[in-house]
């Protein structure tokens, strides 16, 4: 009988231990569920966070003008495109359309063509007269200053030069329209 008693007590202790561990696991699982759902709610990062200021840069346009951060006008649409990305091609018609209706005209639309090869030149030429166009490598001053994480990347600076909104699709940007 003594053996039976010991066995029952042992099983009970094991069961209690199991319960404690299980409740601990359930609690941790709940924390993880909350963390996961938080992360899912955030859209993927495009470039700098909304509310931040672009870093310092000095860069020259395709027609030889030099711009630094001080020359970045407020209320500017900044687009980063790469000749090698298909999604950029899809966005081009909308981008051209938006660039035409942007208040302030070409000064307030900056298009940065990111790439190294010879294909960047013809790609950049299609925006002539439409925007301030730059050609830079992926490690160039402008992509670094804006912290670009993928292409295409569109950003809008507000009247204080702070990033107001960012998107991978230009249709998602809240753009002002010239009247």
């Amino acid at each position, binding site marked *: 009988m003594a053996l039976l008693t010991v066995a029952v007590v042992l099983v009970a202790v094991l069961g209690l231990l199991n319960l404690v561990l299980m409740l601990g696991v*359930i609690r941790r699982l709940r924390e993880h569920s909350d963390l996961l759902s938080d992360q899912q709610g955030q859209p993927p990062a495009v470039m700098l966070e909304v509310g931040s200021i672009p870093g310092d840069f000095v860069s020259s346009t395709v027609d030889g003008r030099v711009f630094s951060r001080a020359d970045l006008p407020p209320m500017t649409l900044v687009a980063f495109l790469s000749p090698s990305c298909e999604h950029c091609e899809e966005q081009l018609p909308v981008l051209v359309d938006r660039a035409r209706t942007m208040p302030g005209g070409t000064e307030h639309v900056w298009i940065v063509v990111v790439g190294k090869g010879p294909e960047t030149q013809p790609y950049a030429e299609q925006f002539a007269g439409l925007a301030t166009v730059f050609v830079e490598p992926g490690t160039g001053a402008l992509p670094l200053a804006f912290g670009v994480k993928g292409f295409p990347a569109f950003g809008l600076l507000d009247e204080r030069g702070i990033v107001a909104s960012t998107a991978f*699709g230009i249709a998602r940007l809240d753009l002002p329209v010239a009247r």
Partner: protein
Amino acid sequence: MRALELTARLLLALVFLAAVVGKLRTRAGFAEFVGSVGQFGVPTRWASPVARLAVATEAAVVVLLTVGRTAPAGLVLAAGLLGVLTAAIVGALRRGARPACRCFGVGAAPIGARHVIRNVVLAVVALLGLLGGATAAGSSPSGPTVLLAVGVAVPLAAVVVRLDDLAALFAPTPSRPTRPAGRH
């Protein structure tokens, strides 16, 4: 039915002990509890004294239940306290308010029907304990009776204290928020 009385005493003592410790363990926990008392319709001026009174009553329940001679008084006080708390919860739900349940200190689950059910079940346990004590023969409980009471009360208390976690486990997972079509 000495075993019934013992089980009820132990279960309620553990649950109220967890409530007191949970609320008083961190200063922030108690502050949050005071805040939640305010959301139950208690005027802000009275929130702090009422919160203190609630915690003091819970502690008194624990002390009364652990001593054999005062156990009936402890069971009556526990039932009364549970009644008051349940009335507060039902009142808040009626008004459409869903303050967080700070029953065991931390925890952010909004109050709901399950807290009402939980408190009612605990109150019934207290009454059953009183019944068991009234019909108990003999003065001191035997060894096996104590073991049985511990074996039943401890797991049940653990489940009651962690009820919100368990409810979250069996609740449907929150639907995935629609991801923005990043490429379009």
